[in-house]
């Protein structure tokens, strides 16, 4: 299932699963990720799954590129290996002061805001990967008519909890960070919990997300 293994610098393997972004290719990446993680190989310092790549960082004192490449190539993963999937429900409030870009999205998609939100909440989303900043989930896929580009000028600060869309993807900003996604709402739920050392991520690759809409009162209630 890995098409090709290249080197990324002198201390990482770049495992290429293809160039398309779809759930089938991504599920393969995630299967490899969990499988290699479980093997607990000595000298592997990081595994970074993304849409269609898996990057394996290693300790140069323990492995060379060729020795580790051989090990990874010899890994066999059964096609019918089932992915562990959780369904996670996440509340989102779309009141005006949270839906920072709803007007822009209305204009670009030529849809009324109520229709946009109805479409957004009517679907479950698959978690392709987490990262960039701690715990941020990259989710998909949005329906064709919901797809638009990033903001021309990214925001210097996107508020924590913001739920945004771009192209076929949506995400949740787990920290206040710069960003250019179109913000439709905000969740009061903590998506990344620093105090939970064993499992800080609410959402993990392979999980399914169902967003549901809440009022400002409910938002404040959960936040308290």
């Amino acid at each position, binding site marked *: 299932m890995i098409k090709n293994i290249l080197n990324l610098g002198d201390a990482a393997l770049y495992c290429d699963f293809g160039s398309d972004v779809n759930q089938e290719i991504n599920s393969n990446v995630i299967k490899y990720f969990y499988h290699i993680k479980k093997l607990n190989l000595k000298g592997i310092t990081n595994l970074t799954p993304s849409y269609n790549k898996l*990057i394996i960082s290693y300790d140069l004192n323990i492995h060379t590129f060729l020795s580790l490449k051989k090990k990874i190539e010899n890994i066999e993963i059964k096609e019918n290996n089932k992915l562990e999937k959780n369904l996670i429900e996440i509340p989102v409030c779309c009141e005006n002061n949270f839906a920072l870009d709803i007007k822009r999205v209305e204009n670009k998609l030529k849809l009324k805001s109520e229709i946009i939100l109805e479409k957004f909440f009517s679907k479950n989303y698959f978690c392709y990967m987490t990262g960039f900043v701690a715990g941020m989930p990259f989710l998909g896929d949005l329906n064709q008519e919901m797809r638009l580009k990033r903001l021309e000028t990214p925001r210097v600060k996107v508020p924590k909890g913001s739920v945004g869309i771009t192209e076929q993807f949506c995400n949740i900003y787990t920290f206040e960070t710069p960003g250019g996604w179109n913000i439709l709402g905000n969740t009061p739920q903590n998506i990344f919990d620093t105090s939970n050392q064993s499992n800080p991520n609410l959402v993990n690759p392979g999980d399914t997300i169902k967003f549901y809409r809440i009022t400002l009162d409910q938002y404040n209630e959960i936040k308290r």
Partner: protein
Amino acid sequence: MKSKDRNYFKILRAGINTTYQDLGRNNLYHIGIPFSGAMDKRNFQLLNSLLQNDYNSPVIEFAYQGPHLKYFGKDIFFCISGNVSFKIITKEGVIDGNSYQCYLLKNGDEVDIRSTNKSVYGYFSINGTFGVDYYWGSCSINTQAQIGPNNGNKFSKDLEIEIIDINNSFNKRKLDYLGSTIENIRVIKGTNYDYFSESSQNKFFKESFKITKLSDRMGMRLEGPKIENIVDPNIKSEGLVKGVIQITSAGDPIIMLSDHGTIGGYPKIATVISADYDRLVQLTPGSNIKFKDVSLEDAETLYKLYQMETNNLISQIK
């Protein structure tokens, strides 16, 4: 702990980006948490060796200007690594200290770490252990994700740095070392090298780039000849590693450093080799760098040589 039994430093001036660091945290890229850890691993290693501490003991890292610390407690030794100017203020007077030498501190003495010279990072520690909390096996402070002791924030004035253990059998030691500098940064071509025009590929290796002020523990932004992308200014977001050089849509290189975002969507033109990373991070804004292309096999050998050099330095500590 009774206050009279406490051994601690009070921060009179925090300095710039002063944080606890150790070797960093592994195996968390997949949730978006980078390695972090001391930027200059050689100086980190030398410092803990000089002080006879455990190899992964926490140290205090600072950039450009270090903290001014006042000590309260029983006699202790401290040491500083990196190219650093500092003063030791005691009842007997004020003396200039030297890096890679251990000094005695008594109750009420102060250390004023004035600046790093022609370099960015310096390290301070003691013959003992700072009282720090561990997050995913590391006490490194990542200010961007607010992970680590001190609520993941850099040091501020009036903070008190607890010392929980002092090695009483310690003997003062020193190392004669002037530091190591580098003219060319050696890189391995990146996975998107062919995204760039031939003339830009040539420019990347022939011309020099200036390090801008927009450089910190997350990344180093460079300016120089614009690198022209002939395929696509974006790739599908994928994992990054320390040392990756991405080219932004504006055509400028940006090098990923220890606190970098774990995934990114700019094409990768090259990656800095592991042997040159410690020296790369010490280059100050305003200085120029040139990239030199090396093979993967050479990079692996150069790393072994660099490690041997570090071990050799450690063996010279007397």
